């Protein structure tokens, strides 16, 4: 009887440790798939698919140019430019764009898939995202027109500002009274 009780008690303790309150529902694979948008610099998170800048040009014209302009030059004061500024980061007027500032091609892919076209986000297929990303990178002179981007080749695209970031080194300003 005693050992029975002890057994029950310790089982209770183990259950309590594993899920202290027992709130929430076990997540299903579908719960994750439905929200799975994160793409890492290694390429982890990229779905299978492929596209070229050639194919992306048409998608861009139809779904992006209205805001970002024909060649990605943007519309000042309204929509950001997607090209230009390479080499400008140390100048008096640095221009931060996908080409000049973004460190990873995977970030471009991730952002276009989750957030663009701005008014219809997540409406593009994986192939379309590969193609239009290739086109935006092509506008920046970073991939060739016929070059295929897929889940293997996209993470290998070397962005000009890949090494442009350093860890937080603040407090970096020492003030005197």
């Amino acid at each position, binding site marked *: 009887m005693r050992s029975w009780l002890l057994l029950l008690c310790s089982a209770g303790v183990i259950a309590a440790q594993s899920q202290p309150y027992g*709130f929430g529902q076990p997540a299903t694979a579908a719960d994750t798939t439905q929200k799975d948008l994160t793409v890492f610099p*290694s390429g982890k998170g990229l779905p299978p698919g492929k596209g070229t800048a050639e194919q992306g040009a048409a998608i861009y014209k139809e779904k992006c140019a209205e805001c970002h302009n024909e060649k990605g030059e943007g519309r000042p004061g309204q929509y950001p430019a997607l090209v230009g500024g390479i080499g400008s980061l*140390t100048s008096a007027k640095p221009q931060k764009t996908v080409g000049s500032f973004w460190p990873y091609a995977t970030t471009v892919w991730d952002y276009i898939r989750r*957030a663009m076209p701005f008014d219809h986000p997540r409406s593009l297929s994986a192939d379309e995202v590969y193609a239009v990303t290739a086109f935006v990178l092509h506008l920046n002179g970073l991939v060739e027109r016929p070059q295929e981007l897929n889940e293997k080749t996209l993470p290998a695209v070397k962005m000009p500002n890949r090494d442009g970031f350093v860890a*937080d080194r603040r*407090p970096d300003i020492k003030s005197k009274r």
Partner: protein
Amino acid sequence: MTEELTPPRRRFLALGASLAGAVVACRKAPVPSESGAHMRAYGERSPHEKTVRVVRELTKSLGTGSSRTPLGELHGIITPSGLHFERHHSGVPAIDPASHRLLVDGLVERPLTFSLDDLKRFPSASRVCFIECGGNSIGEPGANLPDVQKSHGLLSCSEWTGVPLSIVLKEAGLKPEATWMIAEGADAARMSRSIPVSKALDDAFLAYAQNGEALRPEQGYPLRLLLPGWEGNTNVKWLHRLQLVDQPAMSAKETANYTDLMPDGKAQQFTFVMEARSVITRPSGGQKLAGPGFHEITGLAWSGYGKIARVEVSTDAGQTWADAELQAPVLSKAAVRFRYPWRWDGKEAVIACRCTDETGYLQPTRDGFIAVRGLNSGYHYNGIKPWRVNADGTVTHA
């Protein structure tokens, strides 16, 4: 209150008198009623009070941009919920709380989804904290913004209530490899940020309430991440997923934006903490002093590193400084109200404040800031802001 204190007999007499008055009024000319307006189910401020946020849409597309808190017209430390600043990257989503779920998955023993009701069953906690946009004062180092709403209005402070994140993560069982957590919102752009697990386990919480009621839609209704002291953008609104991982995602908003470009062309990244900062809100740009004599100088100070230890005020363009009084309680990672009594002699004067936090960090001057970070770092500007009180009483940027 007064009614309760009135002795019953006097109340009765008063009632009798007003009844008699009514009878008299019936016979003679009608007297306009002096009783007040009806009660209302949800209160609003007086129609005489007009102060509002200043809204600036950044593009022609809906919902990208910001609205700024009118700090110069507010009192105390709590920002009224309807005046809390906003910064959205793709508008304010309309979310039905009944169907909203928070997914906690990735490197956890038990991937779980939580409804709002589930989250509200956990032990709760409340905390007053400031939230400041990493881009507050983005134009200030080079531009001398004319008033405190424009220069500092992406700062607000509220009492937030929710569940400590450590409790929720324990429920899912963190795996030892989990070092980062990707927080994602359910806004149209699915805004996401990578957060070190150390912060998640330290003082982070999942907030469902602000200033005693449910979050406002613009503040993330029905659920937002609250990271005390960290830049606004990491306090992800409309939170619907926490993905536990072993590396940051390098998402757009932690690479292209919210990084600090230094003069050497390198950008500091994951600059999460909002460093100590203070500003005089009265008298401040755009206001006018009625005339010489007593004026209280007051403002706000805050630090993402902890408590504010000291605020000093200068009324002679920084030549001499004197301690301001801090309004108790001084809370960690919350705004603190400071006050300094001043007798204005009617001559032009430059007033300024600077703060020191409990770590000993002293707020830099504008020049001190620019000397290290240059003019193009954009985010996290926290330099001293002087105001010029002109002889006619008007206040402008100094």
